[in-house]
């Protein structure tokens, strides 16, 4: 990827999105993440300002410290560097459902103005135009985590007036419906895109543009939104990435790329148990 050759004076929209998301993670935060930008952002936070955060992956790795970003949610790297590895039914029941997660980090293919998410299908469910991977952990992460951060690129295809399928509930129809349905978590408190940051408005809970990135106009963000976008009276401009943030993120991606490119079966075989234990040796 060409991003690695960028100087610290220039950065990509993807880098800005990852860094803006990472900045929202507070030290000590217990964070449940999925693969992709959420995983990159959470690990960037861990490697910069939030070293003591607790990183949890749905594969059961609790308090993990991966040296490279996992390609899959259940890479061995996550188990090897975790405080504890628990069975999958346990991570969803005793940990997530029990309300022990501060922040759930989700991506999606579509989001609507109330932060409801689709990661299931584009088109109809029975005869979809595009069948997406589906729910995974998302519906219950969105339900139980104390708050949700959503990360996705902003375009009229992703920010839609009506979802093709609701995989994970945000504020449903807004105006307190989430609380009335007795959903315990506070729902999507920030949506971080490649153009800016949206937060739910007090009362209506409609996603509202509260910050834009440098060199991105509000008009451009409106045009990338499939509904008439609400814009806050006071618009913040998110600070550009620092040299340190960019260096740590690029190093992380570089290490990850090298690790994932190798054919691991032959080149990285880990030692087998002591020959003394073999029957068929």
């Amino acid at each position, binding site marked *: 990827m060409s991003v690695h050759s960028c100087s610290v004076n220039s950065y990509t929209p993807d880098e800005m999105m990852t860094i803006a998301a990472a900045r929202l993670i507070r030290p000590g935060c217990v964070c449940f993440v999925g693969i992709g930008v959420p995983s990159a952002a959470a690990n960037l936070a861990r490697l910069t300002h939030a070293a003591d955060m607790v990183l949890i992956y749905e594969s059961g790795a609790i308090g993990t410290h991966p040296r490279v970003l996992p390609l*899959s*949610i259940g890479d061995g790297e996550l188990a090897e560097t975790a405080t504890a590895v628990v069975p999958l039914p346990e991570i969803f029941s005793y940990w*997530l*459902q029990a309300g022990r997660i501060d922040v759930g980090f989700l991506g999606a293919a579509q989001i609507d103005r109330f932060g409801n998410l689709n990661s299931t299908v584009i088109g109809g469910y029975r005869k979809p*135009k595009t069948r997406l991977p589906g729910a995974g952990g998302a519906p219950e992460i969105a339900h139980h985590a104390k708050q949700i951060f959503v990360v996705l690129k902003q375009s009229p295809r992703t920010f839609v007036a009506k979802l093709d399928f609701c*995989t994970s*509930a945000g504020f449903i129809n807004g105006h307190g419906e989430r609380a009335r349905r007795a959903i315990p978590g506070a729902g999507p408190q920030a949506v971080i895109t490649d153009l800016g940051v949206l937060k739910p408005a007090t009362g209506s809970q409609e996603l509202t543009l509260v910050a834009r990135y440098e060199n991105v106009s509000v008009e451009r963000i409106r045009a990338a939104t499939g509904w008439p976008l609400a814009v806050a009276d006071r618009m913040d401009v998110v600070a550009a990435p620092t040299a340190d943030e960019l260096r740590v993120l690029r190093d992380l991606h570089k290490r990850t790329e090298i690790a994932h490119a190798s054919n691991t079966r032959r080149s990285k075989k*880990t030692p087998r148990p002591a020959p003394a234990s073999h029957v068929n040796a």
Partner: protein
Amino acid sequence: MQLGSLQEVIDQYIHNGQSIALEGFTHLIPFAAGHEILRQKKRDLHLIRMTPDLIYDQLIGAGCARALTFSWGGNPGVGSLHRLRDAVENDWPRPLSIHEHSHAGMAAAYSAGAARLPFGMLRGYVATDLPGANPQVREVRCPYTNAAIATVPAINPDVTVLHAQAADRQGNIFIRGIVGAQKEAALAASTLIVTVEEIVESLAAPINAIVLPHWIVTAIAEVPTGAYPSYAHGYYARDNAFYLAWDEIARDRERFTDWITRHVLCSRDHAEFLDSLAEAA
């Protein structure tokens, strides 16, 4: 417990029309067993797996499946499972009926199956379209508080197939690392088949390790590297390059069919399969 070759064990215990679960959450995926099912041309299977992964993409593309129960159907860290998509979107090579869950829902269903309860419970699926897509997701009222709780019917596969690091001579199985829902899937099944990296004199399993005792295991086959291209913690790492390459192979029907024919159907066993991949590399 019966010890046999993989060929014998699959021939004896997997039959057309059965519901079968090849479990393992990105780790210890029983690829060798799946390939043997493919070689023996088993048909009309109801496949069950939280994450269908490449192995079910192959079985679905080869026409072995009539139904799929799952909770996340992507190529982990890479993108789509193109054969699964083609089956759902275009009925190729045959229609596939899908029973879709979230991870938390499916974990609850396996746990209920292991406990021989009729259904599993969770706080989830609220305000999503998933219960509409899968009418098996329903709800009960708590007899103490009258609160609504989502239910999923227990999953009790005819056959569960696992891959594990080691068995001892008695047939006790030791699994370590990321364990997913393997224990629940094993205990939920009528028949349990396990392939292992090796058979050892002593498992040396720590207290509280996940050990499946020999008297719940129907049959064992020793298949070194049997989880490749997924990984076996302590033995070999995941071949991420293969997962990336699969995206290209599976995208095209003809290329997929050629790959299956050349590497799986034309090899007699897993060792020959690995040799044929090495030759092609």
